[in-house]
């Protein structure tokens, strides 16, 4: 309680960007949604400073912002916009080709599966924490993880995606 926003910013910024990179598949996008989450915290500072878990709040907010921005692009497309806007190339950390392929494959999944896989396996969140972040029951997260692994394996052209620590959380 009584968190100082700047202290949270200094302590959590990189961790949140890393986690949101897993969700968004683009480092610039991850930085922007995390910045937006901090801006929203700054706009509601009294509320933020009373939170039990400010980083969890920021993560939930950032994931929601990422989802909204994804939908906004679709709104733009529904309005008939051509693909030239928002078409900037993705930015990534230095990753091996195999890891880049996984990030690219995640981006092709429905967002509910992508978010669950990214937060659980890449961001190392427990199933319970993922459920709290996404605002869904634990059973739903487990189902999304299961289906997501199958879908990801299909995208990667592999028979099945086996992940260590699958049952953790």
């Amino acid at each position, binding site marked *: 309680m009584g968190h100082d926003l*700047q202290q949270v*910013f*200094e302590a959590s*910024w*990189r961790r949140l*960007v*890393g986690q949101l*990179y*897993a969700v968004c598949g683009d*480092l*610039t996008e*991850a*930085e*922007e949604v995390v*910045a937006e989450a*901090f*801006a*929203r*915290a*700054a*706009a509601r500072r009294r509320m933020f400073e009373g939170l039990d878990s400010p980083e969890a709040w920021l993560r939930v907010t950032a994931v929601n*912002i990422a989802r*909204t921005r994804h*939908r*906004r692009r*679709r*709104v*733009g*497309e*529904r*309005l*008939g*916009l*051509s693909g*030239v*806007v*928002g*078409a*900037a*190339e993705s930015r*990534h*950390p*230095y*990753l091996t080709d*195999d*890891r880049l392929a*996984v990030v690219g494959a995640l981006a092709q999944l*429905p*967002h*509910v599966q992508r978010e669950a*896989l990214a937060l659980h*396996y*890449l*961001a*190392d969140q427990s199933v319970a924490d993922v459920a709290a972040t996404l605002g869904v029951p634990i059973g739903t997260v487990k189902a999304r993880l299961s289906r997501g692994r199958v879908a990801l394996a299909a995208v990667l052209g*592999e028979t099945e*995606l*086996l*992940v*260590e620590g699958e049952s953790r959380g």
Partner: protein
Amino acid sequence: MGDRLDPEIVRLAEEAARKPDFNAVLARGAVLSRRRTASALIATVVVLAGLVVATQLAGQPQADQVVPVMPNPTPTPSTPTMPTPTPTPTPTPTVTTPADTERRAERARPTARQIVDDPASQIQGVQVVPGDNDKRVVLWTLCRNSGCTAADYAVAFTSDGFQTRVVPDVVWSNLEGTAWSNIVVRIADNGDVVVVHDFDESNRTRILTIRADGAVTTADISRDAAPVGEDEVLATIAQLDPGGAYWAIDTVAGRAHPATVPDGTQQVVQTDSGQLRALTEAGTYAWSDDGGAVWRKAPGAKDRSPLVSFVDSAPDTHVLMGGSDGATLFPFAEVRVLEDGSTWSVSRQSGDPLAYVGPAAVLPDGRLLARVQGWSDNGSLQGPLTGTPPGMYVSVGDDWSAYERIESGAPFDVPERMEPNVMELELTADGVRLTAIGPDFKAAWTSIDLGATWQELRAR
């Protein structure tokens, strides 16, 4: 294979993350705090982009110096600049060579006129005044490189079908790796144009009013929400989050204020009749016939459909399309009709194949017209079009569960994904007028027979 989903990916992303200045985050928070009081309107020409607007506003049309657009420092509108409408030049066909493209990439930001007149420019959006499509505004974009990861935008508008035109000397630039923001361009019945830029390089909303005579003014923005006045233009930033920006703009006075909308509003549109329609985060549909002073509400507008789209219709007919999630486009899953002001009747679509739809309208004869951008059986985007042809579809029968395709004439006679690129559906006394961008993005087209035949609209 066991470690493909490797947390090392996140750790490397943490290392590569660029941390912004904390004070910049605070400043953005202050803007958001002010905007939380804001509220509603209609977006017709919308650019959703990573737009950092290096805005150029010069006093004379021929001036090329860069002058940032700044908000009014005083409550009174800034002194307008007064370029006069000029005869539209006759287009001169030119050949763009690779060398030209390279030079374009290297040169300084073009002027608004250069953007509008460049043969390589493309139409990004078009809007006409209902009932008078000689009055129209067109948003043009010129890419800076082959991938169009950076581009410049300018507006051209007319009150006489581009016999004469106004091209305000204002340029918006979309640079790589810049923050997300929006531009909405809208033309009023009197021929004036407003441009709303949400989150410019200073994290501010800036609104320009451009009079039909070419005078450009930076609007004075009030933060107090109020109903939309009869002489005000509505412009809304497309946003599915509550707290979207919905602006009512008086082009004559050069003032803007947030419109009054229901709490938790996610989307607002204004029909050609002037009726406002809103959808809240909690799934309540609301409509107002007095600019938002009084809203009638109908809860239960969405349940299993995370995406909802308004269907244009007469003021006493309220229809929504529901879409499932998980796709790039809008998957048409259901139609929802408000039967008695409070009860929704829902008819689900077959989904086999699944239609991805754009604008839709209830015709005066009761049929449902929709632009189908693509079908789930159209095959890979990179491959040839297969399966059910996209295009304009109209319902057959009474329950809007079956549809037939309108065979389009030129330039949309060959079925393609996303075509016809309809930007507007305007209900008329006996039908609907469509306004679309052509396949080459160089001209606008209009149709009054559901898209069977098209007439070109000059766009610059």
